[in-house]
């Protein structure tokens, strides 16, 4: 394995590790971590938690999950293991709700703006790429 391959694997490992940490942090805050970790942990983090985690990441300085997989949402909710409303109800009174932006510092808000700008840059570029492909001659 050359240095290039090692580098790519290390980065993937780090990204996955950060995603797991983020999900665990949210679940711990919501008080439902025990229910989840006891079950089989074969699927990647669910999309709804990923979105919450993404929001928490924006305001808490944690790296947001980049590409939530929609299939995960269906799997989690469909299996009945987690209920989104239930998750929100379990946030303890007095703890800051992760989406209550009035509680966040100037730096956290700035960080959110930076992340939004970065995601916008990605989406704009992806849009350009797709439009270019759509206008290219070729098989419909």
């Amino acid at each position, binding site marked *: 394995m050359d240095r290039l391959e090692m580098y790519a694997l290390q980065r993937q490992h780090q990204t996955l590790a950060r995603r797991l940490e983020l999900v665990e942090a949210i679940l711990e805050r919501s008080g439902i971590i025990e229910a989840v970790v006891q079950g089989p942990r074969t699927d990647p983090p669910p999309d709804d938690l990923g979105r919450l985690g993404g929001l928490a990441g924006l305001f808490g300085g944690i790296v947001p999950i980049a590409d939530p997989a929609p299939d995960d949402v269906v799997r989690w909710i469909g299996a009945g293991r987690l209920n989104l409303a239930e998750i929100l109800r379990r946030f303890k009174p007095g703890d800051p709700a992760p989406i209550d932006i009035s509680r966040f510092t100037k*730096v956290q808000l700035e960080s959110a703006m930076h992340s939004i700008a970065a995601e916008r840059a990605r989406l704009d570029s992806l849009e350009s790429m797709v439009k270019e492909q759509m206008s290219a001659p070729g098989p419909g």
Partner: protein
Amino acid sequence: MALIPVAAAPATPVERPDVDFGPGTRRAVGDGLTVLLVGFEDQDNLGLRYLMSAAEHHGHRCRIVTYDADPSSLVAEVRAHRPDLVGLSLIFQYMAPAFARVIEALRADGYGGHVTMGGHYPSFDPEQVLGRMPGLDSIVRFEGEATFVELLAHLERGQPWSHLAGLAAATAAGVVVNPLRASIEDLDLLPRPERGDVAYERQALATASILGSRGCPWNCSFCSIRPFYEAQGGALRRLRSPQAVADEMRSLHRDRGVVAFLFQDDDFMATGRRGRAWAVELAQAVGRSEMRGRVSMKISCRSDEVHLDAMRTLRDEGGLTHVYLGVESGDDEALAHLNKQLKPEAHLRAGAILRELGMSFDFGYMLLEPYSTFDTVIANVDFLDRFVGDGWTVATFCRTLPYAGTPVKRHLEAEGRLLGTAFDPDYTFLDPRLDLFYDWMLQAFRRRNFTDDGLCGSLRALQFELHLHVAGRRAATAGEQAYGRHLTAVANRVATYTLRAALEHCRSRSVDALLEDPSSLIGLLEHEQREEARLEAEVAEFYLSFRRDVGDVRKPGGFERTWTLATSS
């Protein structure tokens, strides 16, 4: 504020006959002295290889070793082989203290042979270099082949050498700077650079540097190329014959398997119709040979020298796939300070032509220069969005540095603004808030812009390979090129957003306020580095999969030391 002493202007060149490199003067290698040349081997280091072949033509046995920051390996090499002369190639001015340590280590180990040095910086400032490097015997100034060969001849015969034209020498009486030697008029008389020890055959993409010309007629304030060649008199730009260049390329392609040629000419297309005609003739010489369609070329030139018809011929006949543009700035006022003698629109036109021809390109860009204001810097950032916001190439940026021999260094000295040391010159900006911004910028973008593993290095290499057309390797698909552009566009837009946010933040506050609360700038730095880490992973993954798919399972080659994600062989 301490002033740096102004280096003495070069003396008037003396007319001396070129050293003879004809067949009648060739001697068997080994009949003369043993020479060890030390320098960076980035992109073959043609400067050293031309010296090597000149010396070997006259019978001296030469070896090149790569410079290493740790002198111990060089000391061991010298102890083992006891060369008669050690020649050091000082390319980067800031490396001077490190080279001083190397010389000190050699002398401490008991080496008693001749130690000489060449390169831009020692040529312009021989008194400083010889004065600060005890143990260094001489400096071969400016174009070195003839002076170097004469020095070796005098050393071989045991004759005095400190008076030689083109040489600066450390003597018992102090530093002596001799009149300069005239430059070599006919570059075709020089032996081809020695490449026997370069392992082209082991490279995944066998890539060789090559020279078609020397010199540049332009007079940009930050550049020492013109002063370097102007010092010795003669034409500001000298051309090899196109057929001679094509013959050297053929030899490397046929005998060594080279498929990519990096022209190291300071300005390949200079100037005007004559320059274009020469470049086209060279491309046509390549096109008439078996290399047609089988090799790629890279050149460097100005934006206003990019003409559609000439570039198309260079692409179709010569295999031109990549151009390095001396863009330097996208702001009118800054371009005037840099004496570029063109407008930002010239860069946009050049970019449009190269895109139309499907060529990759990269460029130099000085976001800041000694006379920058917030307005000019922000205009430079905005220009980056216009120029490369589509991701055709990665945006890189730095600031102007006052290298030895450059007009900007002289201006700063005259203004009393030159700071730092002779080896490491520096200056502060007219607005002190820009100093804070620049210090932050260096930290925030250090990995991205200034390391081999950073985004600039990896994306430059990726874009080069996505536009490459060489024999035995499939070309990238439109989809692969589009994805490469997407990754690059994101890298560029993230960077310009970060730069703009930091500039606006610094502009709207006093120096004291910025120092009292750096939290916003720290937050921006963290954001930039987070996004870069994310992109690096994506680029690495794509690059690997692309390499596997084109059948290139070996490690990246060719540009590895400066362009690709570097791997050691």
